[in-house]
């Protein structure tokens, strides 16, 4: 009985921490999914945007002594800018054409940008953990002895607000509708007056901002290693593969599933948690290539 009770407690605690981690890390995969859904480009620099957001927020808080909220905002804003700058490096043909050759070249070029950015941060940060001070020291007690920190709760709230803003932007604004139209049928969208340049730039900027937001929020909860970036790219791939490439909704749900599964495995077998998750997703790809929820581009 005591063994079963321990097991259930472990599962419950893993569930609680998995939901918060999954929701915040899903911001990263949603950005990757959005970029892929609209442009058919696998943004291999995405993990670098994540660590860049954490790095800038860390610098703003530790060096410029800014308020944690302002630091996170600075991280997100500069993350969006670095995303735009990276996108502008891509030759224009690669930004608008989606034949396999062009997307592969874009993929390699972005990997090059990612290496420069990630290694630049590593060189400066020397592998130290990048942390942003907590906004609050409160702890919220949950039934069953579990708890979440006030900082985690605020970060989850910020993630929910970011998703709400994204949904409103994509669903209600002219540019947002243009992005959705462009993702569904490029030629028709351009023919009807959608500005491909504006749409692609804004999409890439939003994708990079979501990655930077994810990095800076996680830096405020756990801290982010300045040597990270590639592992997070893999995690983002794992989530969008589970959720279906191009689907924001799928990314959120898959992010939560990932967070819970990862936390549960990490609770019992911490060393092999990522290996088990990666293997499980590999099997999902091979058996069901469109992900658990299908490739739902229209939900972008």
């Amino acid at each position, binding site marked *: 009985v005591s063994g079963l009770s321990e097991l259930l407690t472990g599962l419950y605690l893993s569930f609680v921490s998995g939901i918060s981690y999954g929701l915040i890390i899903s911001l990263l995969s949603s950005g990757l999914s959005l970029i*892929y859904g609209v442009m058919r480009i*696998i943004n*291999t620099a995405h993990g670098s945007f994540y660590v860049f957001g954490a790095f800038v927020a860390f610098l703003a808080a530790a060096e410029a002594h800014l308020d944690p909220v302002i630091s996170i905002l600075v991280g997100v804003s500069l993350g969006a800018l670095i995303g735009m700058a990276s996108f502008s*490096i891509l*030759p224009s043909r690669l930004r608008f054409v989606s034949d*396999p*050759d062009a*997307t*592969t*070249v874009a*993929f*390699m*070029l972005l*990997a*090059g*940008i*990612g*290496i*420069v950015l990630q*290694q*630049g941060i*590593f*060189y400066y940060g020397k592998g130290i953990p990048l942390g942003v001070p907590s906004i609050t020291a409160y702890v919220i007690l949950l039934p069953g002895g579990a708890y979440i920190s006030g900082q985690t709760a605020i970060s989850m709230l910020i993630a929910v607000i970011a998703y709400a803003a994204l949904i409103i932007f994509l669903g209600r604004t002219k540019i947002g509708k243009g992005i959705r139209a462009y993702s569904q049928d490029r030629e028709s969208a351009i023919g009807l007056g959608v500005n491909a340049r504006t749409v692609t730039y804004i999409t890439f900027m939003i994708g990079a901002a979501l990655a930077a937001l994810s990095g800076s929020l996680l830096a405020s909860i756990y801290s982010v290693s300045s040597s990270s970036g*590639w592992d997070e*790219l*893999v995690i983002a*791939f*794992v989530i969008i*593969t589970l959720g279906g*490439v191009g689907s924001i909704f799928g990314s959120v749900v898959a992010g939560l599933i990932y967070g819970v599964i990862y936390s549960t495995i990490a609770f019992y077998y911490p*060393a*092999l948690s*990522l*290996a088990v998750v*990666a*293997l499980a*997703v*590999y099997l999902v*790809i*091979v058996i069901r*290539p469109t992900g658990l929820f299908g490739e739902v581009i229209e939900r972008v």
Partner: protein
Amino acid sequence: VYNDKTSSLLHLDLRSLRTNLHFWIALIFITGYAAVPFTPFAYLKFAFMNLVMLLIFGLSWDLLYSFSGQVSIGQAFPFGIGSLSFVLLSFKYNLPMLLSLPIAVLTACIAGGVVTLTTLRLKPDYQAVAFLLFAQVFYYIAETVYGGEGITAFQAGYTGQSLAFNTNALYIVGFVLVIASIIFVQPFESNSSKWRLRLIAIRNDPLAAASVGIDVRKYKAIIGFASSLLAGVAGAYLAFFTVHFDYTLFSVTNSVSPIGVAVVGGLGSTGGIILGAGIIGLLNNLIPVWFSNAIVSIAYGALIVIVLKLRRGGLFSIFGKWLEGKSP
């Protein structure tokens, strides 16, 4: 991007020898390799062995991408399997190193080939991610099982094989491996080869290729096995001359390394891969003398960006144009 109008080493015509860039690059490389033992710079041997490893690794990725359109960002998987198998066989089970080498290569070939088989029906993007995931699985497993230190000759209970510490022997093995690897890829690169024509058809339009009776899956699978075999050679050779293996050999950064070699040198050509390996090898060996390894990676990433932005045919196309201008 892809140099599909270049003739290969096997397609040497004495009249066009002057302008056959593959020939000149290969000749310079082989002459340089052969000349190093006669120089007083012992370190150059190590640099050239590293270059051989990069070159074979670059050939393995290029074979997969340029000749069948399959994309991998997990090429570190067969590479790491080759390396790990070699270290285990040689230093844990004390098999002769020259016997461990082919067994390790075969293991990598089978492991990488089987993963390729399971991903054949996927679109290139998904396939790239599937390869990456598999490499990551082994990255975490190797980190857990062998720790950060990995396996080295002494630590693994190595009882002593003189070959491991005979630099000349390691150097000669490297030479044999690189020549064998270059010859191995020539049937895929020769303009007159049926293989090449079929593979170009598969790469450019798999549906059209299937409609004219080409077994697309079979050819893609063969390339998958062949590419894994080369990656295994590169990985096993790295373990051979460093007498070491650690989990970072399965890392994403290592998977990106052959992509950099192929992109910087020039995709789809042996000459381009030799050039790319030369440039990246030079960066790997020169920059750490003055700066940290992070600067090597930054320079490496910047080079990929610059080449893809300004000259997508890689350095090979720049020299090719220059040589064409010189031809009568």
